[in-house]
């Protein structure tokens, strides 16, 4: 298992180096994306490789000339990499419409990062009406045509079905890994788990599927010593700070499930295989747990969170938000209230890349875990 995880950790450590290598080795075209509402199946069916961007680990300099300091570090970081050429191996970028900041990132990328093609997928914001459903399908059809033009290929239903099968398998495996670990948190560190999810969004999906299968096999065979850790849930946008898990674990907790778009929101819900593939992909987007930038009802996010906490027997919730992230910040008071009413304590962490001093976080985690 160590080897498998090492391969993934390597990918996560430098996704761009991985993307470059993949391109040189296989000649595959690489398409970047910024959010889980990017229809990966369609990119795969075009014979291209979808690679998610997670901001930058370096300092932000060039992006400062385009984005104010009150823009989240994810958007600033992605633009920084685009401007300084970190992403110059990409054949194109895909921007699904989500929050106001990503919306402007798409414009700024199109205007300033000239290499590679640029495609917007202007998805509906509300997801719970018939006309929104139809529009979602229409947008994905347009997206398919856009990709065919940009990648000079034709995307067949057969290839779409294949891609759907692959992505569904990946989702099933990720879910299985989450479940196994949720039963026995001692099987794997939180850091390792996040490495797996992130690597999945970066690496060759076929290879990734093989690794995930092996990981599941090893986990199913393993027995972890019973631990006394306090079970936690984490919720937010993206988790770009794996160190947080070490801190939580050092304080005696373990994150046993999450509501992240670098987590369960990526693998929840499968694409149906018994209908038109584009329609099926659209329907998954309508069905899966929503990102707060989308609307599928007034209380579903709180209901999902509470259900998740109960199902996973979590004793507390840690909200991990990026500073300046509007959609999540607006939902926080209502989610917290809903948890309070259920007697589930929660802790809010608003972070920016890079994280604040470790000692400070350590103390907060310890205090929180003592309370629950």
């Amino acid at each position, binding site marked *: 298992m160590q080897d498998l995880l090492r391969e993934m950790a390597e990918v996560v450590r430098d996704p761009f180096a991985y993307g470059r290598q993949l391109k040189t080795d296989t000649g595959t075209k690489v398409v970047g994306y910024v959010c889980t509402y990017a229809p990966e199946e369609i990119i795969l069916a075009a014979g291209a490789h979808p690679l998610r961007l997670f901001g930058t680990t370096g300092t932000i300099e060039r992006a400062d000339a*385009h984005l*104010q300091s009150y823009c989240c570090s994810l958007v600033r970081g992605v633009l920084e990499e685009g401007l300084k050429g970190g992403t110059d191996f990409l054949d194109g970028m895909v921007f699904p419409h989500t929050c106001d*900041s990503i919306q402007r990132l798409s414009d700024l990328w*199109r*205007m300033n990062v000239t290499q590679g093609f640029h495609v917007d997928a*202007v998805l509906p914001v509300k997801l719970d009406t018939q006309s929104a459903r139809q*529009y979602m399908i229409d947008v994905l059809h347009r997206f398919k045509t856009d990709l065919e033009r940009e990648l000079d290929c034709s995307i067949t239903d057969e290839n779409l079905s294949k891609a759907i099968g692959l992505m569904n398998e990946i989702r099933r495996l990720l879910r299985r890994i989450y479940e196994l670990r949720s039963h026995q948190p001692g099987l794997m560190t939180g850091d390792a788990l996040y490495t797996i999810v992130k690597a999945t969004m970066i690496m060759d999906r076929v290879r990734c599927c093989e690794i995930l299968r092996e990981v599941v096999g090893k986990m199913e065979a393993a027995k972890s010593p019973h631990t006394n850790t306090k079970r936690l849930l984490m919720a937010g946008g993206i988790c770009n700070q794996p160190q947080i898990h070490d801190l939580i674990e050092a304080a005696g907790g373990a994150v046993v499930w999450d509501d992240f778009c670098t987590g369960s929101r990526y693998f929840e819900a499968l694409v149906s295989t018994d209908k038109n593939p584009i329609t099926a992909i659209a329907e998954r987007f309508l069905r899966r747990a929503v990102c707060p930038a989308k609307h599928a009802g007034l209380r579903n996010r709180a209901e999902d969170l509470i259900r998740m906490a109960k199902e996973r027997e979590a004793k507390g919730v840690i909200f991990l938000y990026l500073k300046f992230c509007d959609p999540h910040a*607006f939902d926080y008071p209502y989610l917290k209230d809903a948890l309070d009413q259920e007697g589930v304590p929660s802790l809010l962490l608003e972070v920016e890349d890079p994280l604040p001093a470790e000692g400070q976080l350590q103390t907060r985690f310890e205090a929180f875990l003592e309370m629950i």
Partner: protein
Amino acid sequence: MPENTVDAEKTEKDKRKIKAIKKMKEIMTFYYIDAKTATENNKKVAWITSGGPVEPLIAMDIIPVYPENHGAMIGASKMGVDLCEKAEAMGYASDLCSYARSDISCATVNGGPIGGLPKPDMLICGNNICGTVLKWYEIQARYFNVPLFIFDTPFCHTGYYEEMRRYVRSQVDEYIEFLEKATGRKLDRDRMEEVGRLSVAGQRMWQAVLDTTVNKPAPMSAFDAFFHLALIVTLRGTQTAVDYYQELLDEMNERAKDGIGAVPNERYRLLWDNLPIWYRTKWLSEKFAAHDACLVADTYTSAWCGSLRYMDENDFLNSMAEGYTRIYLNIGVDEMARSVCDMVDKYDVDGLVIHSNRSCKPYSLGQYDIQRIVEEKKGIPSLLIEADMCDERMFSESQIETRIEAFIEMLKQRNRR
């Protein structure tokens, strides 16, 4: 000061005072009384976003109430910080839009300059201005426990496509169904057509008012426009708005003919970008005027007539889908920059003043690029002010004062060349 100088100054000031203001205040007072007594009069109240499709409400005799207009009032009466802090105590991050923060906390304490807004019977959220309103209206829908209609207008990064047209158009029908259900009444189609015509007429009239500032000197400034904007936002689709703007237009044309400018010795003509800084409009207007600089136009108030070209007064319901989707904030940064360049030409502007507004990400992110494009294409200098429209804690007076001085100095230098 000798008495006659004081008198002269007073007449000088009087001369510049816009007479229509009094009427405007009356109309707004009446409007808010009407709204606040709605329940007694068996009328329904809908809260609606500033860029939302209000005409069907008017046609159905539902009183539209604008939390954003309320937000502007809160800002102008310097009550923003207090209400924002209250929202922060409720758990809302201090980086969120200060209109939203003010409104969310105001609803729970009935505070603010008019003792809170009348309670809504329904909420209408048009997301053509931002994603913030979606979250904000979800919060209020939970708080007031009333139905929410989302008018979802896909973002037009590079164009408006057929599938967008279909989607938005079908929502126009869904919207009307929603209103019919909420009121238990049918929409009177003739009345709807009439309201549509009045809406377009009002927008044209508002554009005509704004266009009077092509005159030199400009008979009014952007600061005046910020004030007179209230009607095209709140009473769009009514005869009242059309009549009022006709009167204002006449007055402005008269002033233009007589050569009366908003700023006594107009020397520099400037263009404002983004929302006003509500709690400092007077301070800013005086600062600029003291340097003979007049803000002759702005990208904000023109947003309520900017998509006129897509609207058809004789086919309102069909054309409003496109009109409401292709508004200034719902288009790509490059298209925004083009429209700013056009304004620079139209109003013959010498410089650009950009308010980088922490509250409003869709308006502000991308401004640096717009600034660069306008500087390059139009060869005019620009000034960037970091602030917030309602949250005074984000306003650093001394810093901004220094920047304004430096900017004016630069304009002077250029003038000399």
